[in-house]
């Protein structure tokens, strides 16, 4: 083998604390190394050209680059060696920046360490072999999970791009959180006027199939060929027939249960259509409160329905779809503010959440757009908004900023003034975070034009005083305590990961971060990709986001999917497990431990059981390789011999001239 070694200075990033020429010189004494040099920036165009030229001139058949972390530039250099005519797997990287130059102070130690890491890479490379990917076709269909604004945007963009789309929504209607909002910042335009047409487009698009009241039951397969089973929950109404006339809603005698769409500010009938613009506009029975389903009596809806579409016997239904890609747009939930003792933990009805306040502001809400406080229905005069409820607070394990609360609080202060010109808004805030187009101007308008009184400080306590709430807090700018007699307190609750995200993540093999939001492939360069090929993220399931950002991500994810499915064939990663069948004793331990079901039992020509890897399903984790006692199943590119070579390079065994 002829190996070339390139030691990158990375400007002074590496060369500052590693003697790069010395590392390069030492590499020439390593076995099979025929060429070694140091280079200023290996990843730059001249750097890559240098590698390509050396491969050609020196007839190299393997390349080692010692530079930054392979997580940064492994792909870059693999493409470079490919351009030079080598297989992309005949390349190894030694991480002498993040793991050496940036963490060690002593030049001498760093240089020795860099030399050893290069030596290790050389020993690994000596045992590499060219790997050729397999090609396979893709299913031209996309699954979008979640019908909030991000999911809607993604579905429409995919469908407009010519792909079939299956959109599933857990709730009875699509629209998500945005459908509940009254107005949106910073333009203060009507939320449903913006969203409504898009929801209708979903219903009418010939390429989109919508399943509401549906969830992902199971996921099989792999990028380009996912097999999805969808559970359509029983609605007890035949949606093929229901035309959403609403007669059943009017006649339903059981309407005492809280209405979740209205944030439990009012009640709803047991058979319901959540809001007038709902898509699909179909009635569904709540099995927890329906008298017929809980007690076996009633049945009025079935009697009044002109289309006879009520079916109390309806069962959940499983639907199988094959898709080539999945977009996850499952959104977020609101922080449960009851964890805070200082806000009364629910004892005071006039402390409400920002989302409840949206419903009070909304013309289609329980009060018809009149701001009336829950306790006595009076119009409030002094309204206190408290920001960062469940944001930027380590004590409740929510150290992150939810990002949009500053903006919607400003919006609500503005709308309050519009609704109640005599009112006075107070906003307790920590910092105003409004870094968006026209955002800062918007918050200033709330203060300057709408007279909202912004107090920088936290609220320490709220307690009732007569029919009012006394809000006590600090004004950290003035350095004083402040007290406000409030008629209504609105908590700007933060965002948290949606309930059920963890379970969905497990099915899709998408990791949640420590707060339950899904982790993107790279925080900067791959913001909508996940580590599972073919699964993409859109909207707040990846982290708190406002509407413009969610819509952008929806489009971005759609663009990624369209790019993926525009390819006739995909290539599978060849660094997968492979079975050396003569060595396999057919015990099936690998099959037992594979998390992906990527190994199946086959019979050899003598009928003996043997393991076989399904290339496209294997994700390359290597659990099987450790499970197999006879080492018959080896993860390509990370074989036992390759890793052992690295161990031996670091810990060379003692050699004896005489063993007697």
């Amino acid at each position: 083998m002829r190996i070339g070694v390139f030691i990158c200075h990375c400007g002074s990033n590496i060369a500052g604390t590693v003697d790069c020429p010395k590392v390069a010189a030492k590499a020439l004494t390593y076995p099979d190394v025929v060429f070694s040099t140091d280079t200023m920036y290996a990843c730059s165009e001249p750097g890559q050209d240098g590698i390509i030229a050396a491969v050609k001139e020196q007839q190299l058949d393997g390349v080692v680059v010692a530079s930054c972390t392979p997580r940064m530039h492994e792909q870059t250099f693999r493409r470079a060696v490919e351009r030079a005519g080598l297989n992309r797997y005949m390349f190894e990287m030694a991480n002498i920046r993040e793991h050496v130059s940036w963490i060690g102070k002593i030049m001498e130690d760093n240089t020795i360490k860099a030399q050893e890491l290069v030596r290790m890479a050389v020993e690994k490379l000596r045992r590499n072999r060219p790997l050729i990917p397999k090609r396979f076709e893709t299913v031209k269909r996309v699954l979008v999970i979640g019908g909030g604004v991000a999911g809607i945007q993604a579905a429409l963009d995919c469908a407009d791009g010519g792909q079939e789309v299956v959109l599933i929504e857990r709730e009875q209607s699509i629209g998500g959180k945005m459908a509940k909002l009254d107005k949106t910042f910073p333009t203060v335009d009507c939320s449903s006027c913006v969203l409504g047409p898009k929801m209708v487009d979903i219903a009418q698009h010939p390429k989109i199939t919508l399943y509401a009241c549906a969830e992902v039951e199971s996921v099989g397969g792999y990028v380009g060929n996912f097999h999805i089973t969808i559970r359509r929950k029983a609605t007890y109404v035949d949606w093929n027939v229901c035309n959403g006339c609403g007669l059943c809603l009017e006649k339903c005698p059981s309407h005492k249960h809280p209405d979740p769409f209205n944030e439990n500010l009012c009640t709803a009938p047991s058979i319901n259509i959540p809001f007038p613009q709902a898509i699909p506009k179909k009635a569904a029975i709540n099995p927890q409160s329906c008298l017929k389903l809980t007690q076996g009596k009633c049945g009025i809806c079935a009697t009044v329905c002109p289309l006879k579409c009520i079916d109390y016997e309806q069962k959940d239904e499983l639907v199988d779809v094959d898709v080539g890609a999945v977009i996850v747009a499952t959104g977020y939930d609101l922080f449960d503010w009851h964890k805070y003792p200082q806000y009364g933990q629910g004892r005071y009805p006039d402390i409400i959440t920002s989302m409840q306040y949206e419903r009070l502001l909304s013309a289609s809400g329980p009060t018809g757009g009149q701001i009336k406080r829950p306790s006595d229905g009076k119009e409030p005069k002094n309204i206190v908004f408290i920001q960062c409820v469940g944001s930027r607070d380590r004590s409740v394990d929510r150290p992150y900023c939810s990002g949009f609360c500053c903006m919607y609080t400003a919006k609500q202060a503005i709308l309050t003034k519009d609704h109640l010109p005599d009112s006075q808004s107070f906003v307790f805030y920590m910092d105003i975070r409004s870094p968006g187009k026209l955002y800062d101007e918007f918050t200033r308008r709330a203060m300057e034009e709408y007279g909202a009184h912004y107090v920088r400080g936290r609220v320490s306590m709220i307690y009732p005083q007569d029919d009012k709430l006394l809000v006590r807090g600090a004004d950290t700018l003035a350095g004083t305590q402040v007290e406000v007699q409030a008629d209504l307190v609105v908590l700007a609750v933060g965002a948290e990961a949606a309930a059920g995200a963890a379970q969905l993540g497990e099915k899709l093999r998408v990791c949640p971060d420590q707060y339950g939001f899904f982790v993107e492939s790279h925080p900067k360069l791959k913001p909508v990709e996940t580590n599972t090929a073919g699964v993409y993220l859109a909207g707040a399931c990846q982290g708190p986001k406002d509407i413009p950002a969610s819509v952008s991500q929806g489009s971005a994810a759609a663009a990624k999917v369209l790019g993926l499915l525009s390819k006739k064939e995909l290539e599978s990663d060849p660094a997968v497990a492979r079975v050396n069948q003569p060595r396999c004793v057919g015990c099936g331990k690998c099959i037992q431990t594979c998390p992906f079901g990527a190994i199946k039992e086959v019979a050899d020509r003598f009928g003996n059981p043997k393991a076989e890897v399904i290339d496209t399903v294997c994700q390359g984790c290597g659990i099987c390789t450790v499970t197999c006692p006879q080492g018959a199943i080896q993860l390509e590119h990370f074989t036992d011999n390759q890793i052992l070579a690295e161990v031996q390079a670091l810990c060379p065994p003692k050699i004896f001239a005489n063993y007697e």
Partner: protein
Amino acid sequence: MSPLDDLKTAIKSRLGELDCVIGWEQGYDQLHATPLFIRSEADLDRLVIGPLAVHNLATYLPGLRGKKVGIIVKGCDSRSVIQLLNENLITRDDLVVFGLCCSGVVSHRKIRAALPVDPGFVEAVDLSTDTLSITASGQTTILHMADIAADKCQICQYPNALIADVLVGSPQESKVLTTLACQEEFEAKSEAEKFAFWQETMSRCIRCYACRNACPMCVCRDFCISTSRDPLWLGQENTPGENMMFQLIHVSHLTGRCTECGECERACPVDIPLLLLRRYMNKQVQDVFEHRAGTALEQTPPLLTFKVEEEGIKERGW
């Protein structure tokens, strides 16, 4: 009828449907038994059972896959059969298990140690319930079974076959003792002492792989990673280090699978106390996973599964 007669009758009635039944017969002298492959009723006459029938015959089963065989098992051997079944390495339908209720077997090593000179020329052996009398080179020595019983028998918890189509003999009680003094004594040594012990012990290992090939759970056999080039885990050089490495490969691969039958140690031609390692590992498995290999059908070896919350594992905090 004696258990041996019961056993012969039972085997006779099943022999027709089987390729062979594996049992024991007398070996090169009266003191040593050797495995017997019974293929005809004539072979059956040579069958012996008892304290000299030391071999765990389950070792042969994976190699006979695809054939219908019968096997005679002691309590400890039956654990190996169960473990092999649990690991899908043998087929229950192809197997007829003749179970014994075992009162223990001898340790030839202990017999040797009890005699001044190796009993190389055995003239007569006389067995009673509690004693073994050996006449060798003209001298007769009477040994007490309790002194020469194999270590595993002194702490035996499973004297009666746990799996059997036919069970002969009267069931025996499990032993009160569950740990061996010598094991505890060894474990109590300092790390440096243990290190030195293995260094010098492994310096006499000849890497003949008798321990591996006698082990009923070493099912890789011809494809053991210690003799392959790809993967290349082990050098061919006979140094204490490589010899120890082999033993550690063996133990590692037995984690949660070892049935503690002791065949490895018994097979070792240079008497390396390999069970010191096995028993310790098994104890760890028992402590962490509450698992004892081969004691129940349908068990999953603990390294082939996991729990999201591991009650038995306390990780180091940093």
